[in-house]
């Protein structure tokens, strides 16, 4: 089971109390995790990545295993502890005013 930690505003939008727990078929990549997340919580479509281009929104970052994976290729394998559920994949709102 893949664990995804969302920022508070997106948890509210998804009506989610804690982590999202997702079943991901095949390779565990940014794309497959986000596809599974949006399939389970369709209201999150467009909030993390663009509807059409699928590009990460500029003020959203992806952290995992104490690394910033935001600029890794979308189809690169995520670290093993993400795939086993030992560590969460974290969607983070960048520190940017507001």
């Amino acid at each position, binding site marked *: 089971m893949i664990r995804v930690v969302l*920022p*508070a*505003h*997106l948890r509210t*939008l998804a009506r989610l109390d804690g982590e999202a727990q997702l079943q991901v078929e095949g390779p565990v990549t940014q794309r497959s995790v986000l596809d599974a997340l949006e399939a389970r919580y369709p*209201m999150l*479509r*467009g*909030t*993390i990545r663009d*509807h*059409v281009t699928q590009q990460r*929104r500029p*003020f*959203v970052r992806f952290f995992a295993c104490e690394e910033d994976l935001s600029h890794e290729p979308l189809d690169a394998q995520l670290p093993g502890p993400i795939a086993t559920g030992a560590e969460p994949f974290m969607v983070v*709102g*960048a520190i*940017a*005013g*507001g």
Partner: protein
Amino acid sequence: MSRVRVLVGTRKGAFVLTADGKRERWEVSGPHFAGWEIYHLKGSPVAPDRLYASQSSGWFGQMIQRSDDGGKTWDSVGNEFVYDGVAGTHQWYDGTQHPWEFARVWHLEPSLTDADTVYAGVEDAALFRTVDGGRTWQELSGLRRHTSGPSWQPGAGGLCLHTIVLDASRPERIFTAISAAGAFRTDDAGETWQPINRGLQSQTIPDPDAEVGHCVHHVAMHPSRPGVLFMQKHWDVMRSDDAGNAWHEVSGNLPSDFGFAIDIHAHEPDTIYVVPIKSDSEHFPPDGKLRVYRSRTGGNEWEALTEGLPQSDCYVNVLRDAMAVDSLDSCGVYFGTTGGQVYASANGGDTWAPIVRDLPAVLSVEVQTLP
């Protein structure tokens, strides 16, 4: 007894203010969508408990929220706003061409006849429509594809379509306004559009009476007198008596003709309200006095309405969508400020009192008159 429901959009959430017809004691509900910018929310004229809200954030983009119980509960609906075809480019601040990019929904205008149909004015400027209660949105691209489109340029707030006026007497007619392109009208339900800016004079553009390029801030029309339009432009208060074909200035004795908001009395189509702002760089009232100005003559002759409003050391702004009227027998007038106050007058502007004083900066105010 009738009731009123005031829908307030702010920088950090939405608030719903309700009162009975006396409009003396108010209940405050909110913040809804705490932490998100709520540019606008508005109810359907045919199903008043159906509300739509534009929720956005610099981090997470645009959401559209819908309520079917007058704002008690909300559901997120569609948020996919994709320009029709190749989006093309418009003029950027430095004069270069810049790709059309969706940023947010500034204004939601529910249909006058169908609760599931809503028009959305967006940044970068375009008009979208849903016919399924907000689930999906389609661009009425005839406006953006107008031949003048590549010359449109953003105002300080972005290239935004912020005003949508529907005409109950002529369903195929829609008025829109864009900063900083000007006002436009369609007479065929959005297929084709024409600029309606003749008579506007703007010293901030190379050709002051150009066909497009004017920074129109807001347009209001009384439903009983379609074709008569009032406009608050960047500078100048304007009037048209022929559906925008020609405009003439009615700023008259205003202390400043810069401002954002303009609205019309519910029962007196020649009684109009503006809130003069000192200048385009000083976005606060002249002399630190918050004054609504009322004209009972359709412009030119204006009186200051001050009772109950701060008359010293007041340096707030009143934004374009932040004024509205109710339709009770004694017309109520409402406006919100960037200082977080929402003021109400239950007597057409003669006296004012704050409903709330300490909200986040107010972006929009709409009012529903309920049975």
